[in-house]
């Protein structure tokens, strides 16, 4: 008897709290929302930010990043940046160095370098 009364009382209190919180809520338009660019692709808009965070963290781990570092790196990215990475982390440009050309590629690039099309080698 007492238990069910306490339960009913709790329900009433919860209802009252929930309804007062609801009506007291005004709405502020934040800067990020105000200046947001329209989404370029439907696909980007649909990837949930939290899901994107997990995906990117997993990808970083798979790419050899220290687990402690992945948390901080993922935490420093915006939702839009995380969504972009979740889709294309293995194909986005990754600046590495001016050198490191090997094999058959070397000859092609040497020809192109001499003709002034590429800019890989320093002294030519």
């Amino acid at each position, binding site marked *: 008897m007492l238990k069910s009364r306490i339960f009913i009382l709790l329900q009433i209190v919860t209802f009252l709290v929930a309804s007062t919180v609801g009506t007291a809520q005004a709405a502020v338009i934040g800067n990020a929302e105000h200046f947001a*660019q329209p989404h370029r692709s439907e696909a980007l808009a649909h990837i949930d930010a939290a899901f994107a965070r997990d995906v990117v963290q997993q990808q970083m781990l798979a790419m050899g*990043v220290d687990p402690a570092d992945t948390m901080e*790196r993922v935490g420093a990215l915006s939702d839009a940046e995380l969504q972009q990475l979740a889709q294309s982390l293995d194909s986005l440009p990754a600046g*590495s160095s001016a*050198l490191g050309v090997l094999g058959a590629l070397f000859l092609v690039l040497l020809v192109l370098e001499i003709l002034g*099309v590429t800019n890989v080698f320093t002294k030519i």
Partner: protein
Amino acid sequence: MGRSIIALVLVALITACASTAPPPPNQAPSELVGVPFFPQTEYQCGPAALTTVLVHSGVATSPDALTPQVYLPGRQGSLQVELLAAARRAGRIPFTLEAAPEALLAELEAGNPVLVLQNLGLRSLPRWHYAVVVGYERARERVILRSGTERRRQERWTRFIASWAKADYWGLVVPGAGKLPGSARAATIGPEIARQEGQLPPEVTLTAWESALARWPEEPDILFATANARRTAADQEAAAALYRRLLLLAPGHMAGRNNFADLLLEAGCPGAAAAALAPAHLALPGLAANVRDAITRTAAAIASGKTENPTDPAHCRTLSGDPPSP
């Protein structure tokens, strides 16, 4: 035999495309000789280039400190967005340039070295590389860069542009604390700051908005954003002053009306909040959905606020800017 023919065809096609590059600029030579040099190791051009611009902006850091923040062993390189994230972690705002050679030169003019992404290979076989542009010599048409292990690498303008164009002219600058990019425009500075607000300390964001406001004091969206930032910094009176200035200048700025009304309501002034929001009701159908929703919710909150406090207390006049009653 087959391969050489393919190579020659490739060359013919690519040379044809390269001839439409922008001409060399005709401006006074400039070189930022004070920009430090951090030679890269192996695949760490990202950390080296980022250290260069961060140290130049007044941050104490090093390639060793930045490598764990930006380097991806599996890609043997660093991604552009991670360079942005690392700059923010260092307490600076990185500004991505508009994709145009003019922006690069405007930055050099303003004393900002430019971290650029270059594709030193082909679009189909890219060799991505980060370097820092520190100068341009008009006489010899040479761009001067801190690049790889070269403190003063000189590249012919046409060759530099070819490699930069293949990276879609991507570049960033990190101005010193409270400073804005040299190529900043009123229309572009807002989105650049706003999209990074979530990843920056509030005081850094506020300083950036105040700098933008000092430069463009009558730009409604910048007034709006700075008012919001002042409110986030708990400076209610300064925020209210800016909202009032915004609404005098741009009475149709409904997002501004909404946020001003919210501030007044929170300050215990539902009457003043209702007055501020009133013009928005007629304009509702023409507004963006998010603004419409916010106004509707704010109006509901004002209505319940008025039920509790039918008359505004005296302090509300300071915030609302209404003249004192006779």
